[in-house]
């Protein structure tokens, strides 16, 4: 399951979406807004996402993960809008019978998500400057 969210992400409600009595392992990844990036002091971030396109592309990534790794359930939410330092930008949780595939699938999901999902980050800096990351 994948969603974009305009509202702050709360770990305890996210983790409650993952339940399976056959699962022995839950691995979660949480990306948080850091106070600096590449040596520049960051004051906040803005994320923009292409909702339907992102959902479609995530379905492909999810199908790949389920084919490659023995996992039972997964959940991913990415923030949009303005985020302060320390806020959760992205949350991924993977349930599996055993821990190896849970770790591998979670890492696969975040790596592919960062490469493929149509989501953009704009950083606002302490010096008043701002800019889209990776902008050509």
């Amino acid at each position, binding site marked *: 399951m994948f969603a974009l969210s305009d509202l702050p992400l709360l770990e305890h409600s996210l983790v409650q979406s993952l339940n399976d009595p056959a699962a022995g392992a839950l691995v979660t990844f949480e990306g948080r807004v850091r106070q600096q990036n590449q040596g520049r002091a960051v004051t906040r971030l803005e994320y*923009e996402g292409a909702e339907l396109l992102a959902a479609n592309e995530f379905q492909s990534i999810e199908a790949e993960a389920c084919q490659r790794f023995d996992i039972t359930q997964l959940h991913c939410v990415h923030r949009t809008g303005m985020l302060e330092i320390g806020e959760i930008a992205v949350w991924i949780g993977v349930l599996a019978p055993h821990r190896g595939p849970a770790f591998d699938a979670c890492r696969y999901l975040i790596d592919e998500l960062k490469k493929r999902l149509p*989501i953009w980050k704009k950083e606002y800096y302490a010096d008043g400057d701002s800019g889209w990351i990776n902008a050509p």
Partner: protein
Amino acid sequence: MQVEVTYYAMLRERRGLSVETIQTEAAGLGALYDDLAGKYGLPTERHHLKVAVNDQFASWENSFASGDRIAFIPPVSGG
């Protein structure tokens, strides 16, 4: 042909709007982008950009049909 064009992130800011409906005779997605890039001062190099048609990624070589929703995708930076 009439299509709906969506710009995201840096392209949206450069164009000054998110969505517009346009008339075009461009032969394909690449040609359509090149027209708009020339007109609105968007980046002229397409190899960093992607394009989607009706919420699915597409190839710059693809053609498109009247009524399609076309989105131009700058380099992503989620996560």
